[in-house]
């Protein structure tokens, strides 16, 4: 490639843009974390890092992160696999509907779930515990939600769909002839399950399990709501504590960067493991659907199991949601749930009177829209360069493109603080812009995934044909590629917009006085003892999120139908 002016065309501009975006938004913040962790007073320093890791609160947080994430992974995998098997391989009644219902937990932000469970199961005042004591005559509280078990239980309820989706997919795609031939050869169901089904589905189970682990490891909300008072910190909550309560001194930021480094390394390890599992497990299991897989006859258990599934949904989704709305309508927290104690005042105050909550709703919606739009376009450009272009240095780009996948939210937030609070000439601290920058970095991975999947389906010959017919690179992109990848771009938009609406882990480290997001407002109101307002805002957030999901499902249906 010569450097002559006429050759400096669209391709180079795209490449430059792609590298620029990834470096500025993703690489710099992450590098600054490593730099601050290992570089003290102008010298490389590992001893200090070890010193931080040896402090009691640090290694306890590391240990807690591991214990909690492992616990959630085990329980979530069991729950997810069981339900997936139930809705795909048995004759459970209303399987289709149940399958949709089991995806609903994904919509409920887990920190809102945690708030609800706190109201239901806190030892002395939780409604369920009080019911046991006051109505059933138990001596003391029956459940205590402020424990490892409580946190693991709550996270499991909202994270098991990671495994559920993966396993459902694998079981549905699996070639039933494999099982059939085993059966014809005389194997019994137990042997078939053990020798054929499980080995075939195992990669999906493991990859779902690792997704749960990755998520739980870096998860802030549930542990913050349920753990802090009992002295249970994980890495993200300890980073939050260090940044918010120890006066932003350099020492606390450094501890934060060391913790963040550990988090990145762990996340990278989990992803590496996942890649290995997936690449080893690429059996040819999709081989045309000759038969429907045999369904296990549940016989007498059909209706009891259906009742169990419905009870599970009622218990994990309906009960917490109803609790949130009811508590949000109470005049003050602690009153019995009786008609005379309810008011619309909290909801009205939040929507129409209170600057703080109105700011929060406005911020979350605009931040979500802006992050989704910017990341969608940036994602197309970067994916295009990675998937389609033959440029030197693409390897670096591929590596940079992988980075956002393995960088947890609290790490991005910390990196963004280091990069954008004035040390390099731009000071976004305390503004919504710093949250936007962090969202772009955080959600780039989603956009890259959706867009590169779409781009891989666009054959190179289309662009070549356009170029051969005399179109410029730019025209070929505009008239051929972009229209073809539009579904991928749209998918990216919504994959980013909806999670951004309820984001907490990143924004809780970055918010300023006027830049609270919905998640931050719910969390801080709860922390400040405004429980009823916190619940009311959570209720409003649920309405916004569910409306968003439904509108989008509709929209995708019509879009794919036409």
């Amino acid at each position, binding site marked *: 490639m010569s450097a002559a002016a006429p050759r400096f065309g669209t391709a180079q501009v795209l490449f430059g843009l792609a590298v620029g975006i990834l470096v500025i938004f993703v690489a710099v913040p992450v590098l600054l974390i490593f730099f601050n962790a290992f570089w003290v007073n102008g010298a490389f320093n590992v001893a200090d890092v070890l010193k931080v890791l040896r402090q009691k609160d640090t290694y306890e947080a590391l240990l807690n992160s591991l214990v909690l994430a492992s616990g959630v992974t085990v329980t979530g995998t069991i729950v997810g696999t069981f339900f997936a098997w139930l809705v795909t391989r048995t004759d459970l009644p209303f399987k289709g509907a149940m399958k949709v219902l089991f995806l609903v937990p994904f919509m409920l932000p887990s920190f809102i779930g945690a708030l609800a469970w706190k109201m239901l199961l806190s030892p*002395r005042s939780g409604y369920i515990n009080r019911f046991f004591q006051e109505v059933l005559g138990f001596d003391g509280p029956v459940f205590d939600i402020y424990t490892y078990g409580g946190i693991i239980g709550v996270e499991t309820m909202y994270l098991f769909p990671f495994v559920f989706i993966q396993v459902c997919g694998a079981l549905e795609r699996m070639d039933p002839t494999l099982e059939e031939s085993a059966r014809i050869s005389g194997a019994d169901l137990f042997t078939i399950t053990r020798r054929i089904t499980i080995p075939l589905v195992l990669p999906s189970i493991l990859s779902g399990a690792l997704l749960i682990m990755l998520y739980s490891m870096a998860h802030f909300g549930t542990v913050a709501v349920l753990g802090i008072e009992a002295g249970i910190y994980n890495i993200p909550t300890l980073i939050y504590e260090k940044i918010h309560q120890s006066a*932003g001194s350099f020492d606390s930021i450094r501890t934060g960067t060391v913790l963040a480094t550990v988090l990145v390394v762990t996340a990278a390890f989990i992803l590496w493991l996942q890649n290995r599992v997936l690449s080893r497990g690429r059996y040819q299991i999709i081989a045309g659907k000759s038969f429907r897989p045999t369904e296990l006859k549940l016989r007498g258990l059909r209706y009891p199991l259906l009742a169990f599934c419905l009870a599970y949904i009622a218990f994990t989704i309906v009960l917490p949601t109803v609790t949130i709305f009811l508590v949000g309508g109470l005049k003050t927290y602690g009153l019995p749930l009786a008609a005379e104690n309810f008011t619309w005042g909290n909801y009205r105050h939040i929507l129409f009177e*209170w600057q703080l909550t*109105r700011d929060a709703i406005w911020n979350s919606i605009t931040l979500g829209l802006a992050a989704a739009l910017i990341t969608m376009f940036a994602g197309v450009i970067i994916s295009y360069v990675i998937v389609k272009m033959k440029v030197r240095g693409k390897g670096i780009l591929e590596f940079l493109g992988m980075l956002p996948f393995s960088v947890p939210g609290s790490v991005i937030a910390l990196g963004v603080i280091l990069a954008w609070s004035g040390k390099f000439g731009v*000071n976004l601290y305390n503004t919504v812009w710093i949250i936007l920058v962090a969202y772009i970095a955080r959600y780039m991975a989603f956009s890259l995934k959706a867009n590169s999947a779409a781009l891989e389906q666009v054959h190179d010959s289309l662009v070549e044909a356009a170029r051969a017919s005399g179109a410029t690179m730019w025209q070929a992109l505009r008239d051929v590629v972009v229209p073809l990848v539009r579904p991928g771009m749209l998918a990216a938009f919504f994959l980013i917009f909806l999670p951004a609406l309820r984001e907490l882990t990143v924004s809780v480290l970055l918010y300023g006085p006027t830049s609270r997001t919905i998640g931050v407002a719910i969390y801080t109101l709860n922390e*400040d003892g405004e429980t009823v307002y916190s619940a009311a805002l959570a209720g409003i957030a649920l309405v916004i999120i569910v409306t968003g999901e439904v509108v989008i499902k509709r929209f995708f249906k019509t879009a794919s139908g036409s």
Partner: protein
Amino acid sequence: MKRTLLALAAGLALALAAGPAAAQQKLYVYTSMKESLIGELRSAFAKKHPEVKMDYQSAGAGKLMAKIAAERESGKILADVLWTSEVPDFYQLKAQGMLLPYTPREIKSLVNPLPEYDGSFTAVRLGTLGIAYNTRLVKSPPASWQDLQKPAFKGAFGVANPALSGTAYMSVSLLTKAFGWEFFEKLRANGAKMGKGSGQVVDDTASGDLVASLAVDYITLDKIGKGATLALAYPPEMLVIPSPVAIFKATPNAEAAKKFVDFVLSKEGQTIIAHEGTLPVRSDVTVPAQYKLPAVDDAMKRAIKIDYVKLMAEKEASVKKFTEIMQKK
């Protein structure tokens, strides 16, 4: 379709954002006062001074100071005015030359509880802390601080985290001055817990998660007003904590800041404060009788005295000591 969706979202967002029209002067207040108090003051201030667009950040004093420290690092303090209950912070900021001295117009009508007064900061209210207890769970109100060591409060007395809350920090300092650290050691032996913010321990008491807590007057009274089954008891040795207001020297909005300081100290502002259930600093304003708060003179007489300047140096050590005691297994 995408466009309609975007338009929809934008429309919704605009509807939500349609606030008051832009004003010329801006003012940003960092305060540890809760919504019930600062929200009322903000509305009244906006009515009186429509030319000033006042906004506030309400959070615990510890969090606000952390925020300010981080903002100083990054070169620009967003706050124009600071109003918390962590008195030593103000002496510290003054010593660092961060505050703009301003003597309020109506200084003559004010009670001043702060030594070495030079206008750098002025007390706006006298916060009191008592024992908030849940009347469903506690039948005989505690009469002394030592009553908290009785079985009635076993495992369920809460104190806010002094690292987060200024009132909690001041209370811990005052109580250890009066009764020594062993007071908290005995409380811990009776199962006392450290909570999060000063509002949260009161809410947890209202719900019954705690049977009682060390509680700020107006936060408790606000919840009682809304129907919570709470009551507030004051032992003979009182915790009276002035909440000073100060203007940052670096503020570009000094005029608006002065208007705010004068407003909260005016008869009108002080009446709002008194009606929320906390002691005013003006003798011509009285707290509504239904709150059953002690009179200002009485409270000052019963108050545990402490040297604020000395406290400045002790904060880190005493927060650490307190945390250690409260987390002892």
